[in-house]
């Protein structure tokens, strides 16, 4: 039993991406032929990822002149402005709160669902797996339109539920808006995360469960001592994807803005802010700066979570 767990942990994740060559493993080629296959991806990647990052960095060092339509070099002034910009921090703190509350709930639900489907105690498990994953196939835009209708007190559903429970919740009011958005995001992605966890559970060798059963481990003990440790890597990856997703929140607030422009401000999330600076205010240089600072913040937080997760795995 314990041996099984240590074996799982000692295999560890490959870090930094490049796989360590296993001793005795023959590599096919040591020349440059690999570039034939990697080159095309990298060429497009350079155009769509690296160039925009570089261009944004360049833009962030300039500022438009008020009168002449020219730009002047201002060094790091834009960055100083972002760090003292209340609108930017308002949105950033909002997505941070969203991350602290919504992500654990969503991943917790996904974990419970994955464990239940994997437990073989469920009737029609494969049906559950497919249906819970289905919302992932629903375009985010459609999900928001759908929930937006349902939240509206016009269309009956929110009103019906309030009548049923004797409550008077208005989902799209300023008090409830963030929770309503969190619910939409949870609905969309809980199945996707469930699938990541479920796939990881499938890779646990059956012998380990047999050994655990022989050692007299019950179902709960098996979950705590085998399944959860086996899911560490998957939980880490899901958390990092969720961080990136949360900090980029845009679709939901942007579409709900058409319903409730007074509740959702132009700077409700940092991404919405960057978008509105560019397309509402033509402030391209400042918008690029906001985008870069946001990217750096995301990378730092994702990296911190990854370090912590790797340390946990080392224990």
């Amino acid at each position, binding site marked *: 039993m314990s041996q099984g767990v240590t074996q799982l942990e000692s*295999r560890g994740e490959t870090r930094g*991406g490049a796989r360590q060559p296993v001793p005795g493993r*023959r*590599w*096919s080629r*040591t020349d440059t032929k*690999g570039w*034939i*296959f990697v080159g*095309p*991806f*990298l060429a497009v*990647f350079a155009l*769509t*990822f690296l160039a*925009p*990052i570089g*261009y944004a960095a360049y833009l962030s060092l300039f500022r438009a002149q008020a009168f002449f339509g020219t730009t002047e070099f201002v060094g790091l002034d834009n960055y100083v402005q972002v760090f003292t910009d209340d609108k930017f921090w308002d949105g950033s703190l909002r997505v941070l709160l969203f991350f602290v509350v919504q992500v654990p709930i969503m991943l917790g639900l996904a974990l419970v669902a994955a464990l*239940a489907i994997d437990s*073989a105690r*469920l009737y029609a498990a494969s049906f*559950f797996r497919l*249906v*819970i994953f*289905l*919302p992932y*196939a*629903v*375009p*985010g*835009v459609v999900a928001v*339109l*759908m929930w937006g209708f*349902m939240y509206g007190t016009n*269309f*009956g*559903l929110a009103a*019906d539920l309030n009548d049923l429970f004797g409550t008077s919740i208005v989902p799209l009011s300023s008090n409830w808006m963030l929770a309503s958005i969190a619910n939409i995001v949870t*609905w969309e992605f809980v199945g996707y995360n469930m*699938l990541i966890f479920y*796939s*990881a559970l*499938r890779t646990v060798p059956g012998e380990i*469960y047999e050994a655990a*059963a022989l050692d007299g481990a019950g*179902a709960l003990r098996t979950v705590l001592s085998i399944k959860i440790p*086996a899911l560490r*890597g998957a939980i880490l*990856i899901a958390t990092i994807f969720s961080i990136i997703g949360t900090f*980029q929140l*845009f679709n939901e607030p942007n579409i709900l803005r*058409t319903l409730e422009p007074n509740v959702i401000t132009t700077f409700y999330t940092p*991404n919405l802010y960057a*978008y509105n600076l560019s397309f509402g205010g033509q402030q*391209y240089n400042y918008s*690029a700066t906001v*985008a870069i600072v946001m*990217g750096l913040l*995301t990378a730092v937080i*994702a990296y911190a979570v990854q370090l912590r997760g790797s340390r946990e795995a080392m224990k």
Partner: protein
Amino acid sequence: MSTSPLAPRRSPMLTVLMALFLLYTLVPLAWLVLSATKTQDDLFSSPGLWVGDEFAFFSNIRDTLTYRDGIFLRWLANTLLYVVVGAGGATLLATAAGYGLAKYRFPGRRTVFAVIIGAVAVPGTALAVPTFLMFSNMGLTNTVWAIIIPSLISPFGLYLMWVYAADAVPDELLEAARIDGAGEIRIFFTVTLRLLAPGIVTVLLFTVVSTWNNYFLPLIMLSEPKLYPLTVGLTQWSAQATGANAQPVYNLVVTGSLLTIVPLVIAFILLQRFWQSGLSAGSVKQ
């Protein structure tokens, strides 16, 4: 199957709990299907999870497809173009690159990987604004290329393919093909692709979903409604309901949304067998 050998008893209790979860998943979809059968007036006056007075499903579909000279069909065709070229190209690039990283050692390989992982940490939407500015300087905005080119990169697809190819393509087989005198590219198209098929279907599924659902990129890149994909078109219809000269077409938004979902759901169900196996093999190895 990696379940306990003792074959645990099925639990009605757990099944009931999960059924609640299922309900949460399905209620919005049920609401959408029911709402697509209602006229605009019934949408406001009838209970959300019940039918309206009039069964307007077919007239809604007809109106959706013919509204404004059939622009919805145009959006559908655009979406299909972006998906076929974008997701198809993304899958091919990710497959080739994943295989190259897994099976070849070449100078710069580690650097390549570090750069890709580092760039992926930068939020994609944060890049969208600079990408827009760059593309507009290149004269690419408001063309199909503005949508297709960025869709060609799927870092997650590359990662999946790399893990999958490392296990699914035996080195001995490649060596044997080389001894038989086949070139690297020919080996890739005749030997490798066949071995990678389940992984390819999985990556294709994810790239299709992400291009089909793409909203932010076309929203900023396109100003010409004739080039819109479904997602942007639908939000435009939805936004018609507010503003100075509002023309609400809620029933068309609802029906259009349903029509947008159906193809993907069908693809999911039909391809289930393939993507499930590809995902397990390419899952996060411990």
